[in-house]
């Protein structure tokens, strides 16, 4: 397998960016909260190499209204992506701000970012809040996917209620041409998330679910016991993308876990590469 894509990484530990923007240290430690040492970008790329991952989506979070902070601005994501062609930049906008649709257009058209990241728990909005609909309309017009944080949330002060899959159903139904990715399998509500994906072909799930034990045991529980693996293999093979949630866990560990579950080689190719390429508009 070649050319894999990690659809879910947060570049919060990249040392080169911390050196340029010292405020990103506070964003990493307090807003996002991760305690690991800052690392050169080269280490993230080495991590991808060991995991068999060619490219990675790097995600910002715009939480200016709820936290008075951004965990990377869209401009900083662009700057980071300029350091390596292996990085795919997504934008984030504050859905509670009046300029959100304009900000998204700027991020896509002027900065070349290729998707939208929203984190309802950190941004403190329900995804089916009609105030967010102009953002979804603009994302649909721009033909970029939306990756939503869903399920449990670790960030300080974030409330789990915003991440329940049922709050995403209106979005899936009202914007059928908008691909939306529910991150982390929306754990612990995996069954609900799977139900949404079964019903709505524009709903995707990413594999970055991890709350206890280790990646292999946890994903085996979520993807073979909470929901049988056959459901993913047979029914959702084109709606599942590999995501690691790096640096909360190593990319290689999650990749190894996904590959250990028992998927067919054809399905692994879809999960690790083809479905992500489809979401990114690189294939029909």
């Amino acid at each position, binding site marked *: 397998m070649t050319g894999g894509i990690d659809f879910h990484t947060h570049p919060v530990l990249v*040392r080169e960016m911390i050196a340029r923007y010292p405020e990103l240290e506070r964003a990493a430690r307090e807003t*996002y*909260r*991760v*305690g*690991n*040492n800052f*690392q*050169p970008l*080269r*280490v993230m790329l*080495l*991590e991808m190499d*060991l995991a068999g991952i060619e490219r990675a989506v790097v995600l910002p979070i715009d939480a200016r209204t709820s936290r008075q902070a951004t965990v990377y601005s869209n401009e900083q994501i662009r700057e980071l992506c300029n350091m390596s062609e292996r990085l795919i930049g997504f934008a984030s906008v504050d859905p509670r701000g009046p300029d959100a649709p304009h900000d998204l257009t700027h991020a896509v058209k002027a900065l070349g970012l290729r998707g939208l990241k929203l984190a309802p728990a950190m941004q403190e909005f329900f995804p089916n809040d009609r105030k967010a609909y102009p953002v979804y309309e603009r994302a649909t017009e721009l033909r970029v996917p939306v990756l939503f944080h869903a399920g449990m949330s*670790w960030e300080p002060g974030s409330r789990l209620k915003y991440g329940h899959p049922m709050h995403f159903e209106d979005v899936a139904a009202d914007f059928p041409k908008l691909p939306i990715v529910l991150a982390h399998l929306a754990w612990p509500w995996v069954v609900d998330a799977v139900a949404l994906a079964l019903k709505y072909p524009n709903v995707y799930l990413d594999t970055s679910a*991890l*709350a*206890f*034990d*280790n*990646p*292999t*045991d946890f994903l085996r529980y979520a993807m073979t016991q909470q929901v049988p693996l056959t459901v993913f293999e047979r029914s959702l093979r084109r709606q599942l993308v590999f995501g690691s949630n790096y*640096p*909360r*866990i*190593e990319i*290689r*560990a999650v990749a190894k876990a996904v590959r250990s579950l028992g998927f067919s080689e054809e399905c692994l190719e879809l999960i690790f590469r083809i479905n992500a390429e489809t979401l990114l508009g690189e294939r029909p």
Partner: protein
Amino acid sequence: MIIKLERIEVTSTRELQMIDITPEVERVVGESGVRQGMVFAMTAHTTSSLLVTEGIECLERDVPAHLERLAPKQPPEGSYGYYHNRYLDFDGRLGFNAGDHLKSILGGIGCFFPIENGKVVRGRRQTVYFVEYDGPLARTVFVQVIGQA
């Protein structure tokens, strides 16, 4: 009396890896101005070691492989588990590396050598290795030189 502390960075490229840092330790000693004394080296991390052994490629495979057998990252199914395999709220990530902490304990975190006439005194086959158990990562090694000019 001269006391100098230097932090050297070592970047591992694999999950388990032995990296020869002897030249770096000798460089720090050489630049310290110490003629008679001691040099101490210590990893700054708890999932890596500093080891002294013969500097040959076969041992660079055997040593980490043996430590991995003694303290596997993922124990054989049904044998035992690690309490450390849990989400660490204070760290914002999963503690999925108990085996690597254990390997660090088994391997030790530091070493020391005498200094004579400004040179590190070590056995002919002794090589100083930084040993990575949880790479790839950029790591820090403390090297402190103490002695007289």
